[in-house]
């Protein structure tokens, strides 16, 4: 038996990959666990854009994510990512182009008609994708249940795979929180069909369409473990950035605000670790949906080999 701890993206991906290899798996969610940070994710599968800051390993390995999600949960939209900047921040666009690959220069209105006249140039990352992260997590969860994986809050009964995110700080002392804040709005007047990233030296943002006029707007990055709701500053910054992308966001209805704590290792790279007989899949930082699948498969492969070797 393998006991996966947690119920966020890392735990559900790990349990899915293990279960798919025919291993006996249970999902243990201790009572009183904080809600997973991944419920607030953008759901962008954007390895090349993340390459602005993330090292090559994330760009390379993250490319497998879109296929994995489509196969396991469906609902992946492959419409690419559009990156724009206000005219006075042209330099940011040049810098982003130099720091990333897998893009080409475009006239944004050719892709998103709504942006006509607002941005003369943009970068298009054609191979990227997006999805609704909460729907995808719910789908993984129900498929696990269909496949006979028990979900309970009792004591773990097998080899522990710890995917508790920040709660695993008790065993991973170098794990830290990077606070992120996001909004969801209902803006039926806005017709964007793919994730749009606005570059700005201080207030960057991304806007991810969720369908039926809903948009997720994210996300701040603050080196803080502060719990609690979004700050007024975050709301102002995110909304003013969204307003720069499309003025009709000013009339949007704010339907959700959320603040969560991303678990991160010092190098901000998600990783598998082995500590005191337990395996950890943690440090997802802002790459949970991109990196959890590939790390979960790697971890499942490791455990399968070990179990074979043990017999």
């Amino acid at each position, binding site marked *: 038996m393998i006991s996966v701890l947690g119920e966020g993206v890392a735990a559900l991906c790990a349990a899915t990959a293990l279960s798919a290899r025919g291993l006996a798996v249970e999902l243990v969610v201790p009572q009183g666990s904080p809600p997973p940070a991944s419920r607030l994710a953008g759901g962008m599968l954007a390895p090349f854009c993340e390459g602005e800051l993330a090292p090559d390993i994330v760009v390379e390995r993250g490319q497998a994510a879109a296929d994995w999600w489509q196969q396991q949960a469906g609902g992946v939209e492959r419409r690419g990512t559009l990156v724009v900047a206000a005219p006075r921040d042209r330099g940011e666009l040049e810098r982003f182009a*130099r720091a990333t690959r897998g893009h080409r220069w475009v006239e944004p209105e050719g892709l998103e008609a709504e942006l006509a006249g607002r941005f003369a140039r943009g970068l298009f990352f054609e191979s990227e994708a997006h999805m609704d992260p909460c729907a995808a997590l719910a789908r993984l969860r129900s498929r696990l249940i269909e496949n006979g994986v028990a979900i309970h809050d009792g004591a773990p009964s097998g080899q522990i795979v710890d995917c508790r995110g920040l709660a695993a700080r008790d065993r991973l002392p170098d794990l*830290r929180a990077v606070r992120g804040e996001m909004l969801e709005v209902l803006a039926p007047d806005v017709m964007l069909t793919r994730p749009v990233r606005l570059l700005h*030296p*201080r207030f960057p943002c991304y806007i991810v369409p969720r369908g039926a006029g809903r948009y997720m707007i994210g996300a701040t990055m603050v*080196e*803080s*473990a502060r719990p609690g709701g979004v700050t007024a500053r975050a709301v102002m910054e995110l909304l003013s950035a969204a307003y720069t992308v499309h003025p009709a966001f000013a009339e949007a209805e704010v339907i959700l605000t959320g603040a969560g704590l991303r678990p*991160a290792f*010092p190098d901000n*790279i998600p990783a598998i670790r082995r500590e005191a007989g337990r395996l950890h899949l943690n440090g997802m930082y802002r790459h949970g949906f991109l990196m959890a699948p590939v790390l979960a498969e790697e971890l499942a492969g490791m455990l399968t080999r070990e179990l074979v070797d043990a017999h």
Partner: protein
Amino acid sequence: MFYGTSLSSRLMLGTAQYPSPAILRQAITASGAEVITVSLRREGRDGAAFRDILAGSGCRLLPNTAGCHSVREAVTTAEMARELFGTSWIKLEVIGHADTLQPDPFALVEAARILSADGFEVFPYTTEDLIVGEKLLEAGCRVLMPWGAPIGSGQGLRNIGGLRSMRAHFPDIPLVIDAGIGAPSQAMLAMEMGFDAVLLNTAVAKAADPVAMAAAFGQAVAAGQVAFNAGLMPSRDMAAASTPIFGLAELVP
């Protein structure tokens, strides 16, 4: 001497906007900086994990009041910084304009007076204005930090004449060029002009390779300091050959 502390490296490094804390730590090491700044306004008391990483660098910490727009905000943030970091050093920023991020000199002087009276050793982020500089000294500051250009703009030393006047006007006060530096050559120029140190962040943090850029800035600042101490030659209107022309051998084939 910066409030009684002498520093061999005259590069001070900001710690925001790096790809990761691991890269930040490597950049600090590569730069040779002995002083690093750290912001507090937004992170608050719950930023302990990041603060521990900074403390682990072995550098002297210079907390700042970045993001503060009023005297009260700046004073409160400085008090929290002293409590959390155990240092009386504070880089005092009171921002006057959310877009240009230029300092509000009136609020700056007032906050500097309150903090100096309370035992803080204040590093005020100011303009190159001489009168504001004098008021800050009168308020108790023993270091001044004139801007090179607006924060994060990378424009370098935008008013070289004004900065030269400031250097000449305050010959015995440590002057640190803070903000606006985009390239190592600009940092070196500041040091060649006789400034005592250079503080920068974005130019390193947002470089494609922050660690390599940190090393480049460390070398540039060190070279500029050595050059100033060695005594730069004055520029001349005319050529002045370094080898005399008289007595050259006449090489007739």
